């Protein structure tokens, strides 16, 4: 049916055929089997944690001094790293998506490195760069008396290192999808590049920015390898939740499980807050 020019259009939802009237034409039946297995691979371990948990001791385990310190440190450092990812990674994504100089492809591959690199290797690399005898570390120590490794700053740097690609990749994708056509229109309407960026570009890529932020934050919360290598495991300064879980497991299974469940809850919260539109590939 064609919509005539002046006919007010019905809201989109009303024009879509009802779900129960639509026949699946792109889903072979056998696919259900591996799909269900895949789902179980993800869901069952979490269920296992729930079954193993010692619910009676839960309040006590979760409110131990070490646990509270770790939770607080985790949230604070993850938030700080996420802000760094946005402030630095946002412009990087814009350069990658809109820049016209040669060598951008190489640049993009480098940005993806932390995604595929084992985090421990990332931590080592950071240590050799910013460590006491590292290239930058020595200069910082001699010039300003600053040492980075094994401080809270090191935790933030390690998390930023591993989480940055998540933000850059989703934001760059959003920028590319939005294209430059709207920005060109804004220019012909008299909007300066700064105004266009604020009123057109940012709102258009907001969903991508949101999902990138959530992914980066979640990656920061779960960060282990780079942190323990580069920042160590000092309660109150560098011992984040995943590190505490690892240490607890050696001595107290129940405590480790309780803290793990806490991380699961935080992860679910993060997904629930931001997922609905933003990771489902709309625009």
């Amino acid at each position, binding site marked *: 049916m064609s919509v*005539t020019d*002046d006919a007010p*259009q019905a*809201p989109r939802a009303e024009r879509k055929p009802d779900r129960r009237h639509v026949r699946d034409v792109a889903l072979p039946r056998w696919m259900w089997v591996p799909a269900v297995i895949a789902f179980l691979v993800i869901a069952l371990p979490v269920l296992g944690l729930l079954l193993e948990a010692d619910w009676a001791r839960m309040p006590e385990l979760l409110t131990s001094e070490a646990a509270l310190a770790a939770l607080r440190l985790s949230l604070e450092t993850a938030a700080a790293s996420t802000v760094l990812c946005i402030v630095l990674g946002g412009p990087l994504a814009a350069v990658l998506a809109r820049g016209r100089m040669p060598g951008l492809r190489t640049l993009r591959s480098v940005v993806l490195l932390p995604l595929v690199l084992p985090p421990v290797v990332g931590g080592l690399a950071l240590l050799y760069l910013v460590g006491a005898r590292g290239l930058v570390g020595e200069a910082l120590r001699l010039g300003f008396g600053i040492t980075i490794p094994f401080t809270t700053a090191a935790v933030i740097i390690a998390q930023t290192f591993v989480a940055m690609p998540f933000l850059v990749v989703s934001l760059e994708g959003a920028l590319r999808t939005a294209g430059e056509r709207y920005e060109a*229109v*804004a220019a*012909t309407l008299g*909007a300066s590049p700064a105004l*266009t960026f604020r009123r057109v570009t940012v709102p258009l890529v907001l969903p991508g920015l949101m999902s990138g932020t959530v992914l980066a934050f979640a990656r920061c919360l779960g960060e282990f390898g780079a942190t323990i290598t580069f920042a160590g495991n000092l309660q109150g300064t560098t011992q984040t939740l995943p590190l505490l879980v690892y240490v607890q497991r050696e001595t107290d299974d129940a405590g480790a499980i309780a803290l793990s469940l806490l991380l699961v809850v935080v992860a679910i919260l993060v997904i629930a807050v931001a997922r609905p539109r933003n990771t489902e590939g709309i625009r």
Partner: protein
Amino acid sequence: MTGAALAASIRLERPAFALDVAIDAAPGEVVAVLGPNGSGKSTLLGVLSGLLVPDSGNVRIGEDTVADVDAGISVPPHRRGVGLLAQQALLFPHMTALANVAFGPRAAGMPKREAEARALSLIADVLPGLDADEMARRRPSQMSGGQQQRVALARALAPRPGLLLLDEPLAALDVDATPAMRSLLRRVIRDAKQTALLVTHSALDALVLADRVVVLDSGRIVEQGTTREVLTKPRTPFTARIAGLDLVPGTACADGLHTHDGTLISGRFDDPLPEGDAAVAVFAPSAVSVFRDRPAGSPRNVLQVRLAAVEPQGDTVRLRASPPADGADWLEGLAADVTLAAAADLAVEPGAELWFAVKATEVAVHPATS
């Protein structure tokens, strides 16, 4: 040149393409730019709007020189006062219709209340018969394609541009929405004396909307003049095709013209032409009679063709020709319009050999572009 709303002379080179064009427009004039795909129309609009930077030349809009390569002047797009309406409406999806239309005036620093008042009256103007207040609150996704394009037009007009660029503004619309949008454009562009450049593929758009036509091919202007003149006396096969006319190129002779392979096309001269000059013979597809066997008698021009395609057009059928086995290339694309009944009587399919006949009195011979 004084008082022109647009005066541009530009050159832009790319691998395998060069745009080299001088174009101007008087205040309130609408100039249609026709041309095959890849002829440089979009590049031309890009240079005028400032989104593309030419290699040489200059562009003046009203009193302002907005680009002059020699003088090192290159005003960015947002300070040129050049509006753009493209094929797609490209309304900002996160804003209401009102915010979209008010965007330009707001960018120019107009207070919000005033900008929205202007936007609302423009929306009422482009969507007559609808509740403007209600439409103004809608998002683009809640409007039909035709409504979106109308709002996009209002948005382009809102900053009062000195020059409006229309890049095939009707091409992406439903057939139902096209005529109304075309008359709207006529009202708000032509009747309101808005200087505009209109890129189009449609002779009808040019006739309804434009005072003057410029035909672009391979980055150069190959034809220009008043819309009527260009469309009734085309000098290139492209223009003839746009105008829906048949065109045969050749050199003038006493009775009409000789094609390059020596075929004589008899015709009449509006103005006498020296023999041997480049000329084109132009006739309407409706003046062509079609036969299965070689016709005998009166019609003076009889051409053997192979049928390439059958295109229904309302209550007639257009038969599109291609050269037969060893025929001349100028037969390619010649058209004949016959009634549905006649087409049924011919009972032909693409590939069939046919005879096109056209009376000499129906063929106009005029000079070709050199």
